[in-house]
C-alpha cells in the first residue's frame, strides 16, 4: 500500500521505513555537510585536471604567441608569427604527410588483421590461451623492447629478415636505412605491436553475436564463407566503427617507435609531426614555435574526431 512518491526520494514513508534517527545526528553537522557536498567528491579531480591539463593547455596557447625558448629566454609577444611560419614551413607539411601516410598504412591492416585473428580464434579451436598470448602479448611490451628486438631483425647484413629473403633468392632490403622503406618498416612493427588490442575488442564483440543467427544459417545450409559474410561481418559493424575511430586517433599520435627505431631518418623520411614538434622544442630550443605547431596538430586531431563522430551518429540515425 505504498503511495506514489516523488522521484526526489525526499518524501519519507514513515510507516514502511524505520528511520534510525540516532545514527546521523550523532555525527557533527559540519562533517555531514562535507560528506554530502559534490565539491568534496570533485576536488581532487578538479585540482589535478586544472594543474596538469587545463593549465598546460592554456600556457601552451600563450607560448605559441611568443618566442620563448627552452631555457626561458625570450618570451616576447610575437602575435601570429609562429603560426604564419608554421604554415609556410615545408617540414611541417612533410612530417604531416608522413603522419597521414603512416595512419593510412597502419589503420587498414590493424583493423583487417585484427578481425581475421578474432574470427579465427572465435571458431573455438583448441589452445585458446596460446592464440591470445601470441596475438595480444606484444601489446603489453614496453616500446623500448619492441624497438630493440625489431631493430635487430631489420639489420641489413645479418638480420633475420634479410637472411630469410636471401634464403628465398631475393635481395635484402635496407629496412631502416632506405628512404622509401623506413616508414613502412616502422608501420610493420607497429602492426605487430598493437594489433592485439583491436583483436581483443573484436573477440569481445564476437562473443555477443547470438547463436540463433548461426543456427538459422545452418538450416539454410550456409557454409563457412556465407556465415562470415552474411552474419559475422554485418554483426560487427558497430564495433568496426569504434575500432577504426580509435585506431586513426592512435596512429596520428605516432612518436615513440619512430623516435627509438629511426630517429625520424634516414633524412626526414620517417619523421612524424609529433617528432618534429619534439625536435623543435627540445633540440631546437624553440618552445614558442613548437607550441604553435602543437596547436595546429591539435586542430587537425579535433577535426578528425568531430568528422568521425558526425559520420557515426549520422549512420546510426
Amino acid at each position, binding site marked *: 500500500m505504498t503511495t506514489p512518491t516523488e522521484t526526489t526520494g525526499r518524501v519519507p514513508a514513515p510507516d514502511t521505513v524505520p528511520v534510525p534517527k540516532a545514527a546521523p545526528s550523532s555525527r557533527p553537522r559540519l562533517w555531514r555537510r562535507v560528506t554530502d557536498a559534490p565539491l568534496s567528491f570533485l576536488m*581532487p579531480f578538479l585540482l589535478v585536471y586544472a594543474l596538469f591539463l587545463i593549465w598546460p593547455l592554456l600556457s601552451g596557447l600563450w607560448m605559441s604567441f611568443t618566442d620563448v625558448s627552452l631555457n626561458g629566454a625570450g618570451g616576447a609577444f610575437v602575435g601570429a608569427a609562429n603560426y604564419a611560419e608554421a604554415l609556410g614551413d615545408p617540414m611541417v607539411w612533410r612530417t604531416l604527410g608522413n603522419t597521414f601516410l603512416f595512419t593510412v598504412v597502419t589503420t587498414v591492416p590493424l583493423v583487417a588483421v585484427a578481425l581475421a585473428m578474432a574470427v579465427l580464434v572465435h*571458431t573455438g579451436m583448441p589452445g585458446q590461451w596460446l592464440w591470445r598470448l601470441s596475438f595480444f602479448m606484444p601489446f603489453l611490451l614496453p616500446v*623500448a623492447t619492441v624497438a630493440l628486438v625489431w631493430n*635487430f631483425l631489420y639489420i641489413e647484413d645479418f638480420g633475420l629478415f634479410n637472411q630469410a629473403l636471401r634464403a628465398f633468392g631475393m635481395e635484402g632490403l635496407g629496412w631502416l636505412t632506405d628512404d622509401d622503406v623506413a616508414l613502412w618498416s616502422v608501420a610493420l612493427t607497429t602492426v605487430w605491436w598493437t594489433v592485439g588490442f583491436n583483436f581483443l575488442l573484436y573477440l569481445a564483440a564476437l562473443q555477443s553475436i547470438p547463436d540463433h543467427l548461426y543456427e538459422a544459417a545452418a538450416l539454410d545450409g550456409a557454409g563457412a564463407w556465407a556465415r562470415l559474410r552474411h552474419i559475422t561481418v554485418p554483426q560487427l559493424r558497430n564495433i568496426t566503427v569504434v575500432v577504426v575511430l*580509435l585506431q586513426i586517433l592512435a596512429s596520428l599520435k605516432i612518436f615513440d617507435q619512430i623516435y627509438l627505431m629511426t630517429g625520424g631518418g634516414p633524412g626526414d623520411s620517417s619523421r612524424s609531426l609529433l617528432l618534429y614538434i619534439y625536435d623543435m622544442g627540445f633540440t631546437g630550443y624553440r618552445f614558442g614555435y613548437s607550441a604553435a605547431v602543437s596547436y595546429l596538430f591539435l586542430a587537425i586531431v579535433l577535426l578528425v574526431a568531430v568528422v568521425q563522430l558526425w559520420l557515426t551518429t549520422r549512420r546510426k540515425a
Partner: protein
Amino acid sequence: MTTQTLTTRGRTDRSGATRATRRAEQARARARQRDLVLGGGRGPRVAAVTILVVLASLWLLPMLWGLITSFKAEQDAVALPLTLLPESGFTLDQYRGLFAAGNVQQWMFNSLLVAVLVTVSTLAVAAPAAFAMSRMDFRGRSALMILTIAAIVVPPQLLIVPLFQQMVSLNLVDTYAAVILPQLVMPIIVFILKRFFDAVPRELDEAARIDGASYWRLFTTVILPLSRPILAAAAIFVFISAWNNYLWPFIITTDPALMTLPVGIPNILDSYGTFYAAQLASSMVAAAPMIVVFVLFQRHIVRSVATTGITGQ
C-alpha cells in the same frame, strides 16, 4: 525434438561433475562453437587451423628470436650465416653483465613504484568524480561531463612542452612527483567509471538516503563494493599504460637513479655500443614483468581491454 536435444545436451548434472566431465563439456562447447561459425565441414576447419598456426608463428617469432639471441655470446648473435644453435653454446653472460653493471634493479623498482602510485592515485581521483557526475546534482554537471569527454581526444604528447616548463618553474624536474602527477590525468577512466555507476540501480541510493546515509557513505559502502570488477579492469589498464609510458618519463628524468625501465633500457645501450646480445637481454628484462602480469591476470586483462575500448561507442 531437435531443439530439445540441443539444449539438454549442453547441461550435465552439476553434483556429479568431475574435472574430466567438465573438460569434456568444454570440448563439446568448443566443437559446437566451431560448427556454428564454420558450418561443420572439414575443409573450412583445416583452412582455419592452418591460417591460425601461420599467424601465431609469425607473431611469436620476433620475441622468440630476441629471446634466443639474448642467450648467445656476441659473436654468435651476429654470425653469418645465421644458426639457431650458437657455436659456443648458450650462455647467461648477457644477463649477468646487465645486473652486475647496470641500474636495472633500480629502474625496475622505479617502474613499479611509479606504476603503483599512478594506478592508486588515478582511481582515487577518478572514482569520486565519476560518482558525483553520475549521482549528484550540481550546477555545471553536464558542462563538466562534456569537458571530460573532450579531454579524451587531446593527445597527451602535445602537452609535454608546457608541462616541462611548468615542472621547471615548480623546480620538480628529476623528481618522482614530476614523473607521476601529469599521468593522473586520465579522462577515459572517469568516463568508464561514470558509465558503470550509471548502470547501478537508483533504488539502492534512495534506500540508503532514506536511511540517513550521506553521499560519501553511499559511495564507499554501496557503490564501490558493487564496482569491484570495473575498478579492477580500470586498475589493470592504468597500470599497463603507466608501466609502458615512455615519452613523459623520458623527458622529465635525466638522473639515471630516477629513470623507469623503458627509459633506462635504451639509455644504457649507448655505453654498450653495438653489442646486440646485451641489448636483447636488457629488452627481455624490460618485458619480463609484463609477461608475468599477463600470465597471472589474463582473464582480467582481456576484460579490461574489452570494457575500456568499447566505451568509445
